[in-house]
């Protein structure tokens, strides 16, 4: 039992950072520059459609996607936007023409998806599909009611080849959510036609805005072509028709605001109950100032830093009960709490050796025994290499960690605070290991290995191959390697990663506690239960 005495007896992390020192100042300056760069991109994403289309939308008296969301959620509550920079580094619009995120609607945490009509008419790009499907996945695994704010011109036709086949899964997900007892609500603000008509079609509840919402499989031109019938949009699929005749619409809303009101009322009646336990620990602020997180991470991702400095500015009361503190010291494991939710933490303090991997695997099993969610704090350049370590069985030990991570069933939250290279990404619950949420700091780097190492490896391989062929390894080849290094450098950035949906968003380090707190609250909508068993641990 956690008693006041046990809370008082929990060690409190101290900080060794010299906030007056040069390192701190340069780290902080570097991080602020990155934070500003990301903020500028976030800002850009909100106007990705262009001012002209935003003005046109507003001149019609229509609300923008984020304005609709602000009205849908409870006043003054936060909104955790997900994948806001989806599409960065691709041909798709920044933000993918849709807003997804989690907000509180009538006291219920809901997944909200809102198409942004100002971006290419709300048409879907490949990134839109990936972003929407990630939102659906988060709703499914965390058991969140889904509210779709629909207003879409349909698929971006020039990109139909990338969209048509995978896009169909969205409708399947909607009905599967419903089958899993997760309510789905569609508030239709504008056209929802052709395939898009299945969003209301597959939802548990639908609200159509009078004179705005429109749903039909084929529009008037197509109907004319197909069966030579003359009709207009309102007759064919208007809100009145669907509310009074077809029954596709459950509620007819007078206007946009009314649709949001009705949507809120629907959520209010869901009788929603979280299946996970309530917070059970004191949720006092960390004793160290979270603002200092700006200067904690090394400006140079290759220089390690003590991840306890991050925990000291993130966990409740900076309390942290470390597990096996003297063993496998490059992986910090231990118990703490965040917003009162007990969590187990695994945080890198350097590369993973066999001891670290074994310690991590043991700790993950313990948290599964105890039904305690896990927080992975990644700053990892990989597993140790070299003859000595191969002989000692580093592969077997790494496998134990990956086994434990893969089969663990308590919620995982992953926070990227620096490097994420190699199999370390897997062992620390990277994207492919289905953490409930992954958030990254702007300094995050992710790749199979560091760009320099990768270039070096390529150069060695290239030189050997050239030697074998009796050819020169000249300037052209070296230039090719440098170009590859630059490409990998670019593809390793936090912006590139988030643009490709490798995470759920880049956060300001100062928001770490808030973001993780909300994430923890969200995961507790589903039950928190440890794994009944794991794969065979190779001994």
């Amino acid at each position, binding site marked *: 039992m956690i008693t006041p005495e046990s809370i008082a007896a929990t060690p409190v992390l101290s900080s060794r950072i010299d906030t007056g020192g040069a390192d701190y100042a340069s780290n902080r300056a570097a991080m602020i520059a990155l934070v500003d760069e990301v903020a500028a991109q*976030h800002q850009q994403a909100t106007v990705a459609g262009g001012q002209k289309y935003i003005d046109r939308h507003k001149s019609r008296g229509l609300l923008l996607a984020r304005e609709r969301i602000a009205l849908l959620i409870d006043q*003054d509550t*936060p909104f955790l*936007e997900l994948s806001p920079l989806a599409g960065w580094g691709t041909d798709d619009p920044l933000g993918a023409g849709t807003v997804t995120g989690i907000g509180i609607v009538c006291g219920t945490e809901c997944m909200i998806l809102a198409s942004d009509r100002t971006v290419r008419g709300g048409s879907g790009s490949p990134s839109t599909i990936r972003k929407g499907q990630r939102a659906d996945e988060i709703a499914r695994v965390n058991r969140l009611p889904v509210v779709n704010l629909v207003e879409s011109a349909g698929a971006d036709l020039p990109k139909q080849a990338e969209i048509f086949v995978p896009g169909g899964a969205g409708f399947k997900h909607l009905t599967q959510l419903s089958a899993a007892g997760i309510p789905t609500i569609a508030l239709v603000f504008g056209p929802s036609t052709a395939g898009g008509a299945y969003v209301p079609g597959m939802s548990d509840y639908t609200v159509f805005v009078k004179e705005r919402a429109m749903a039909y499989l084929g529009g008037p031109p197509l109907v004319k072509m197909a069966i030579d019938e003359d009709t207009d949009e309102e007759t064919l699929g208007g809100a009145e028709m669907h509310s009074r005749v077809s029954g596709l619409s459950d509620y007819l809303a007078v206007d946009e605001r009314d649709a*949001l009101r009705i949507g809120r009322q629907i959520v209010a009646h869901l009788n929603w109950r979280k299946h996970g336990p309530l917070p059970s620990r004191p949720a006092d602020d960390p004793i160290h100032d979270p603002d200092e997180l700006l200067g904690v991470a090394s400006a140079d991702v290759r220089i390690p830093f003590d991840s306890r400095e991050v925990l000291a500015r993130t966990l409740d009361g900076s309390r942290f009960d470390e597990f096996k503190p003297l063993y496998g010291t490059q992986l910090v494991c231990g118990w703490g709490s965040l917003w009162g939710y007990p969590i187990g933490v695994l945080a890198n303090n350097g590369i993973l050796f066999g001891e670290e991997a074994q310690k991590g695997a043991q700790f993950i099993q313990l948290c599964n025994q105890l039904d305690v969610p896990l927080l992975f704090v990644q700053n990892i350049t990989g597993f140790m290499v070299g003859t000595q370590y191969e002989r000692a069985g580093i592969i077997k030990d790494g496998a134990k960690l990956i086994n434990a991570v893969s089969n663990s069933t308590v919620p995982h939250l992953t926070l990227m605070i620096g490097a994420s290279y190699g199999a370390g990404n897997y062992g620390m619950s990277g994207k492919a290991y289905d953490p409930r949420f992954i958030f990254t700091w702007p300094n995050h780097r992710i790749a199979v290995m560091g760009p320099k190492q990768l270039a070096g490896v390529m150069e060695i391989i290239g030189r050997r191959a050239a030697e074998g062929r009796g050819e020169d390894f000249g300037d052209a080849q070296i230039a090719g390697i440098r170009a590859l290094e630059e490409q990998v450098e670019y593809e390793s950035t936090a912006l590139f990663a988030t643009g490709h949906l490798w995470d759920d968003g880049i956060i300001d380090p100062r928001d770490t506690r808030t973001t993780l707190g909300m994430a923890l*609250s969200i995961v507790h909508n589903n039950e928190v239960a440890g794994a009944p068993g794991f794969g065979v641990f190779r001994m």
Partner: protein
Amino acid sequence: MTIRTLLIANRGEIVGRVTRTARRLGITTVAVCSEADRDALHTAQADLVVAIGGDTPATSYLDIDKVLDAAARTGADAVHPGYGFLAENATFARQVIEAGLTWVGPTPDQISLMGDKVRAKDAAARAGVPLLPSTSVIDDLDTAGTSVGFPLLVKAAAGGGGRGMRLVTEPAALADAVSVCAREATAAFGDGAVYLERFVEGSRHVEVQIVGDTHGTVVHLADRDCSVQRRHQKVIEEAPATGIAATTRTAMFEAAVALARSIDYVGAGTVEFLVKGEAFHFLEMNTRLQVEHTVTEEVCGVDLVELQLDVAEGRPLRFGQADVTTNGHAIEARLYAEDPAAAFTPTYGPMHRLEPADLTAIRWEPGVASPGLVSTFYDPMLAKVVVHRNDRSRALASLVRALRTMAVHGPITNRDMLVAVLNHADFAGGDVATDFLERHPDLLDAAPGDHTARIHLVAAVASHVQTNRGDDPHWRLAPAGWRNVPSPPQSLTFQGGRELTYRIDGRRLSISIDDEEIEAEASVVGEIVQVTSGAIRTEVSVRSAAGSLWCNSALGQHVFSPQPRFVVVDSELAAGGPTAPVPGTIAAVTVAVGDRVSPGQVLVVMEAMKMEHHIEAPAEAVVVEVRVSPGDQVDAGAVLVVLEA
């Protein structure tokens, strides 16, 4: 005959006032209450309460039989009439005495003498009190008008307290004024007699408090200035009157005592004068305790209610005129539920809180409970606020602060006007006549300044946000309105349609309203909001009642009523009008274009499946189109009648 149980035939603050003295003297008190007053403040102040039924004054507090019955049932041996209601009703006084009870007041004859304004003037004349030219002989209006002189007032003989008066500035308007006044007097007092009296423009209202005992002693207790009036009713009173020449004052005192003595007056009474310069003229005499008796008590150090009870019990006054001195200066402000900016229209409704910031700084005579109700049936006076200080300017400052800082969470009041009057340079300089408010109409819609409004707005928004955050069951630890991506600001609409948007960053609050940007820091702890703006911190208390946020600080009070973000729109109206629920035949159409319909009103009768369906109006609306006529076949969902809200 010692009084043991005293019935107070009144309501409002005076019941509490009389009760306070009576209790101190060991007397049991009895209150009466009307149906509307069952939970009124005064019922909680007396020892016993008799519900005498009725809502209107006529069926309750003015019903002599009911009041006497209440006295009989509670074994009361004396009746204090307070002021207003039956206080100057000679019949009541007589019946009280005939019932064997002690009447706390002058004799019925004295009451009726002074109640008849014409006879009262005759009495004053006999006592040598200066009078304005007047006449009650109005058979020949030309002669009467000329003898009095213009401008003049036409007054009801049975009136008083400013009721039933008309100002006439030229002879041509006299005839009309007399007939209107007579008609009104008949309606109001049951007596159409009127008289003419010279009107002195720019005069002050100064009155002298007198007390007479049954042993022939009459003393005055100095004077009061009650010049600030609205609709001839006093709102600010002070003692002593300021800027009166000593000779005038002495002459006035002597005149008042002479009048009282000439009629062997017993009990507390007030002789009212119009004063201009060194001249003073008799206005009327009130044969009761006045609302503003408090300021006299403060400066003279007496308890007038105790004196009334002493006299009623037949005790001699224990002091003589030589013992009467005044000390310092006292001012009373009457807080009314009324809207000065709307011609002082009475206001009413729930009073959520009526609470001075510092009870030790003032004498507080409330007439309404906190929380309580301001009823439409009675005088809208909420409370009297009285201060007594060493000199007038101190008293003024103290009263301003007391009024400004008072929590008055309910209907619109005259508080801001009172503050504006007390702050006005003319008032401070003593340049006050009965037409003060008419000459300063800008004071009627006074309000705390823009700076105060801004500070209070910040406090209200901060408090509103805090409340909203408290309602969040999941993310309460996250900052208000937190976003990880730039997003629209939060918005809020206040009653009256004032819209604002705001952003919060920690303690920093940025509000945008009416093209104005307000930046401040606010920290909320319970009801207290510390607002820091321009490096100055102000403490504001923000309390919520009936959906409104009431902000109080040393700067004043504001109320903000956040409107709900959503309104329920009737879906039928939204569709344009009621539709046919099933396919069928129209049997009858009961409305026509242009009709105003009310909710539930039948518009169309339909027959379908041998059933009669009544199509009703969903809400208040106007019929703009009727799309069907009897005999028509309609499909389900067809709009039958188009309505407009």
